[in-house]
């Protein structure tokens, strides 16, 4: 099925993917083999479950898609793992737990589960736990529904680990993880008259350390930072991050390509990264008027915007991610290419996620796109790019140089060369 979200958990041991069919597949990293020091553990399927089912809204006569838009892991507090998964309308809290023992020797039940006649019981015994084959169970613990009129695009867990936010096109709600029957609306940009609607919310995230701070991005290329201590309804931002438009690059499509498709705080909390159609920008939270760094993902597409508008590719929403030390950022592109930018060395690389072109355990060959003029050997011309092969979702292990890259139907896991 089509992968719609990818997320490592806080330790990096687990990797969750969500797909268009409403399923969640969790991969687990093998424990490191002491003898095999040349490679880290591989990821194998750990659990699969159906998170969301298609629903029908009878009032509006609309089908609600089961596609998983986002998954976010909760930090681990006990033996079980918890994650939030959301489709367009409903967020669910799932508990994933292991069972590797089972009780045997009940007094009132036979081994096959049939109940014994109590009158036949003459002696009592204490049931004992015996090992069994590992079973991983996923069960829905909370269902947070009926709080969003528009399509949910983001969920983000607060650093207090008690609350989280969910954002749709026009509103952001704050939830408590224990309370499902109500949420607080903290941002509402719906105009009184829908005729005046010109901007929607595209992504939102809590600050990694300050539990009162969150940001949300818009379709007009702005990011607003809000402080929940200022007021209950955070319609007035504390900071507005926006880069003035470059007049030399103005076109009919300026707004569309400035629309932010993803926003992510750095692990340190000092910076945030935004992804718009052609670039990745790093912002210092202390400076609102322009980003501190800008990386061009596929500038060669700037002259093709008309065609990309025609085939709707210009509306594609690419995500971005930081590595564990905030020194490298990564994002996807077309032709199953993905890009990494090293913030320190200012070097960048383009790689390809493709089964045909890369044998397992071989080093990926850097790719290069030729924008115009003479195409060198090994370069690919812009006109040869396959715009149906897009990498929208990527994730970076929180501690190691292991990345997960999702093409339309496949998940690739790469790690850096270990000597």
């Amino acid at each position, binding site marked *: 099925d089509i992968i719609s979200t990818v997320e490592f958990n806080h330790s990096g041991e687990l990797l969750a993917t969500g797909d268009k069919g409403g399923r969640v597949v969790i991969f687990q990293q093998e424990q490191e083999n002491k003898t095999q020091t040349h490679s880290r553990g591989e990821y194998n399927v750990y659990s699969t479950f159906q998170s969301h089912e298609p629903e029908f809204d009878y009032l509006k006569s609309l089908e609600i898609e089961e596609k998983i838009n986002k998954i976010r892991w909760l930090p681990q507090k006990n033996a079980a793992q918890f994650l939030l998964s959301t489709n367009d309308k409903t967020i669910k809290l799932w508990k994933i737990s292991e069972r590797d023992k089972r009780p045997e020797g009940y007094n009132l039940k036979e081994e096959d589960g049939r109940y014994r006649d109590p009158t036949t019981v003459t002696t009592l015994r204490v049931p004992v736990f015996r090992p069994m084959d590992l079973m991983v169970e996923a069960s829905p613990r909370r269902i947070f529904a009926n709080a969003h009129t528009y399509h949910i695009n983001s969920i983000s867990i607060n650093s207090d680990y008690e609350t989280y936010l969910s954002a749709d096109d026009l509103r952001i709600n704050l939830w408590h993880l224990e309370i499902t029957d109500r949420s607080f609306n903290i941002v509402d940009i719906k105009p009184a008259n*829908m005729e005046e609607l010109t901007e*929607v919310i595209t992504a939102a995230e809590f600050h990694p350390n300050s539990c009162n701070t969150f940001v949300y991005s818009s379709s007009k290329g702005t990011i607003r930072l809000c402080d929940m201590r200022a007021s209950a309804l955070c319609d007035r931002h504390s900071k507005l991050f926006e880069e003035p438009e470059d007049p030399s690059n103005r076109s009919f499509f*300026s*707004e569309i390509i400035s*629309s932010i498709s993803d926003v992510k705080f750095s692990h340190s909390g000092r910076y945030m990264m935004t992804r718009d159609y052609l670039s990745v920008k790093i912002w210092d939270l202390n400076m609102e008027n322009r980003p501190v760094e800008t990386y061009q993902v596929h500038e060669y597409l700037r002259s093709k915007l*008309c065609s990309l508008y*025609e085939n709707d590719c210009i509306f594609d929403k690419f995500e971005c991610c930081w590595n564990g030390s905030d020194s490298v950022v990564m994002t996807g592109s077309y032709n199953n290419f993905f890009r990494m930018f090293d913030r320190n060395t200012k070097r960048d690389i383009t790689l390809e996620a493709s089964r045909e072109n890369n044998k397992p355990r071989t080093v990926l060959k850097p790719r290069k796109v030729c924008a115009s003029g003479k195409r060198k050997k*090994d370069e690919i011309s812009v*006109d*040869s790019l396959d715009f149906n092969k897009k990498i929208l979702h990527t994730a970076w292990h929180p501690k190691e140089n292991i990345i997960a890259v999702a093409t339309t139907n496949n998940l690739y896991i790469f790690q850096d060369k270990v000597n």
Partner: protein
Amino acid sequence: MLGKGVKRKREEEEEEDLTSQDWWLEETTPSPNPEEGASPAPLPPSSLFNLSIFKLHHGLRRGEPDLRHLVLVVNTLRRIQSSMALESSPPEPPCPAPVDPLPVAPDAPLCTSVSALLDDLSHIEGLCDTQTSFSEDIPLSRPPETGLDPGRPAPLGSLELLLEDGLEGLFDDIDTSMYDCELWPNLKTDSGETEDKIQGQGLDVSELDYLMDVLVGTQTL
């Protein structure tokens, strides 16, 4: 247009031998559309405008429109319209050409608000139609069975979605006093007259047909 991995024509290529490293070219299927290999010329604003109208219409026909997509397309329409308004000459006198179903004159004031567009589209295109398949649907070239009919009630589906208040918002649009607002001066008078006026400002039906064919051809690849 952009090809899905289409190999460029031979005369445009550098002279290189096809080696096994050119696998990415071999893998792809050639596009049936001969235009896709060439570098695209930018579309004129009027074509972009029509394309945007088409996208808006198509977006609204979906079960539940993508609000972000809708807003971005409408905002782009505004830009194109303002650009065309700045460039256009005084309007030509109306001529008895076949009625064009598109509701907009290039020099109309900047007013492509979402619900106004929705309203016009619903009256003209008939969003109540049972057509669901995109590839079968060529609304721009269909002879218009219905003209602008302010009295006809708007269909429930697409309007309701943006009018969160449901029926209340719906009835606002049926209220014909909307057409008295200065934003749409052309629509004040009898519907037949205005259609001719709008048509006279010239969106060529055959040009639209051609554009539609290109788009439908692209979509089915």
